[in-house]
């Protein structure tokens, strides 16, 4: 085992060695002849992409493969049953409602789904009587469908049970592996005399290195899948079956929605069990990325400081502003560090905290952000005024949509069409409904049409960069 935590002098030495090694490497890189430079960069680029590519493309590991297979088939069956349930026609229970209109009480017979709209129209509405119709199973040979749905559900439940037993068989194995791993780790800890804070431990006191972490996560996933996902699914589907059993189900909808939710659970369980051998290292990779990336902030700081420094030195116009920049920069950074690293509740810490949280951050910084953002309110007015002219067909379309949506959102607009009743098909011409329709149907579709193009373009560009096929400004340069 090469990567062992160290402490004391040896740690210092190791770090020093790493730094020296790094400097040496950098020196060697400066000596690389020009013709070898591009290939090196191409190789590095490809390798770093390769990790994430494989992590995504390789399916989950072999141990949990059988479970996933069973779950997949169960999911498939449940979805098939779903389609059958969808096809059952249900006559909505008719409601006899009663409400006060113009001083006198009115009694009416309405379909169930009209109730909400009627409430919006008339305010207080009392349901006097609800007659639950049996779902009509005549159309699309519904009886056969229900029968088949029940059969498939039964098969699915059987699958789920198998999956559960499979998981139960798996868990002790993984546990054993975990124990071995943590034993190894403990032994190492003893051998290298590691102190407590040098070891990451979990609540059971096992030492967690990369491998044990992965195993522990695997165990938790198995437990979660078995108890949180599969068990409830079995229960629900069973009850749904029995409900469907006697063909007098009043609310097929509820069964449908419940079943649908459970299907999602199953597919979720499947995905939680699908770690492959690279997945545990994803976190490490992103950490490395973040750390190395954040070394680059110096570039920004130096850039800004040199720019404003020049302005101050040469007393250019507005050098006072550059000075203000410097003051703000140092004040914020300094106060931030002081309030974090001075020991708690010491005078300096309290003062710097007051300056930081009270004045600089919550006082100035946040207000500046919020106000800059709120400027958009003004610019949106002038932009609308200028752009929405009846110049071209396109401009007209834009203007029309914008006007409709704006009116539909505010009370005044809603008041304009408040004459139209909520009930029935007429109700869909109320401005707020029109607004809702525009946003959810044409707008959604258009956005999606654009999104696909953008997605494909991005993927293609990523591919070009990954394989260093990209051309243009930065990539053409001879090194």
């Amino acid at each position, binding site marked *: 085992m090469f990567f062992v935590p160290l402490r004391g002098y040896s740690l210092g030495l190791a770090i020093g060695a790493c730094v020296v090694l790094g400097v040496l490497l950098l020196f060697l890189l400066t000596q690389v002849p020009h013709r070898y430079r591009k290939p090196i960069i191409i190789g590095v680029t490809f390798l770093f992409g390769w990790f994430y590519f494989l992590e995504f493309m390789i399916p989950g590991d072999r141990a949990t493969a059988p479970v996933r297979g069973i779950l997949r088939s169960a999911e498939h069956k449940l979805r098939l049953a779903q389609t059958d349930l969808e096809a059952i026609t249900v006559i909505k229970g008719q409601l006899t409602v009663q409400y006060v209109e113009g001083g006198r009480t009115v009694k009416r017979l309405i379909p169930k789904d009209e109730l909400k709209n009627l409430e919006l129209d008339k305010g207080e509405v009392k349901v006097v009587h609800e007659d639950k119709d049996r779902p009509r199973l005549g159309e699309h040979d519904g009886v056969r469908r229900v029968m088949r749905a029940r059969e498939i559900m039964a098969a699915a439940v059987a699958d789920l049970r198998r999956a559960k037993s499979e998981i139960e068989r798996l868990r002790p194995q993984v546990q054993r592996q975990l124990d071995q791993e943590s034993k190894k780790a403990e032994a190492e800890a003893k051998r290298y005399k590691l102190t407590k804070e040098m070891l990451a431990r979990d609540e059971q006191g096992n030492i967690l290195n990369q491998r044990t972490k992965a195993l522990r996560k695997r165990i938790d996933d198995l437990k979660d899948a078995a108890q949180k996902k599969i068990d409830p699914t079995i229960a629900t589907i069973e009850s749904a079956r029995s409900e469907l059993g006697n063909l007098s189900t009043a609310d097929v909808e509820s069964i449908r929605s419940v079943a649908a939710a459970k299907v999602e659970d199953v597919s979720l369980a499947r995905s939680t069990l699908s770690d492959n051998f690279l997945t545990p290292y994803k976190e490490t990779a992103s950490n490395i990325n973040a750390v190395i990336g954040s070394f680059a902030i110096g570039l920004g700081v130096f850039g800004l400081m040199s720019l404003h420094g020049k302005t101050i030195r040469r007393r250019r116009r507005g050098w006072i502003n550059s000075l203000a920049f410097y003051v703000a920069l140092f004040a914020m950074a300094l106060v931030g560090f002081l309030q974090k690293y001075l020991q708690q509740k010491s005078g300096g810490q309290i003062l710097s905290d007051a300056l930081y949280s009270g004045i600089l951050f919550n006082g100035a910084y946040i207000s500046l952000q919020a106000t800059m953002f709120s400027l958009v309110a003004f610019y949106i007015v*002038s932009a609308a*005024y200028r752009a929405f002219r009846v110049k071209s067909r396109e401009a007209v379309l834009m203007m029309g949509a914008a006007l409709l949506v704006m009116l539909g959102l505010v*009370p005044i607009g809603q008041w304009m069409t408040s004459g139209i009743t909520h009930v029935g098909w007429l109700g869909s011409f109320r401005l707020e409904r029109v607004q809702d329709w525009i946003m959810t149907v044409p707008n959604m579709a258009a956005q999606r049409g654009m999104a696909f193009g953008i997605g494909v373009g991005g993927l293609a560009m990523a591919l070009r960069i990954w394989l260093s096929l990209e051309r243009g400004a930065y990539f053409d340069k001879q090194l």
Partner: protein
Amino acid sequence: MGFLTYLDRIDRRIMYLLLAVVVIVPLIFPIIRQKTEITPEVMKAYEAVEKLPTKDAPRKDYKIAVISVFFGPGTMAENRPQMEALVRHFFRRGVPFGILPFDQAGTTLAYNKVDQIAKEMNKEYGKDWIAFSWQPIFDQTLQAMATNVPRTLGRDKRYNAPLTDTKRFPIMEGIKTAGDFSMVVEVTPSGTVPAWISYIGQTKKVPIVYCPTGVMVPEGYNFLDAHQIVGMLPGLMGAARYEAALGEKGFATRAAGSLSTSHVLIIVLIILGNIGYFMSLRQRSSS
């Protein structure tokens, strides 16, 4: 003619001034009267609050409501009116409540508002309401509250005194776990309500009222349909509707008014612009 053609190029500063006027004036003077209809999800929230135990309730079913403040200056325009509407309702019915801030900047914003309302409805800090100190961590805090509220939340905001000091804070009398919450009001710009639902709402059977910003509203309805939340105030308009249910004309109602006026202003400007555009076209063609 000259004026009409000027409509083609109104100076932007004048438009900005107009906008400032039509937004600020209705905010300060309630001049806009518009019928705000009370939608079901808001009505549900109102009725839920109507059912809460008041501070004179017998000891055994004495509980406090909690307003979780997750908003900062960025979204306070939408979120603070929601909080205000509910606070007024709590005060009016004498429901004891505490504000529990999770956003550092929001802590002061929420505290100032509630303090102001308490003064005008002469309610007493520590007796009718209390402000807990800022909680930097979210999930762990919720989980810990399930077992012990005073220790988790530590101190209050005004005096920075321990919450266990029930002489100073009679409101905290007998409040031990999250089970002693009569209601949780989640005022938030981000997707934080699922945590409340799973840690407090479902496990401790505490009703939750959800106050999201406009963009978060659509997914809020899912929670409503699943009965995971008892009611919802969708955005600023939701707050206005709640005030309508209260029969008050508070900030939200006025804000809704200035929303309307600002939209109308934009529409009018667009129309004027087009008139001016046509006029200048005609002028060009004639000259």
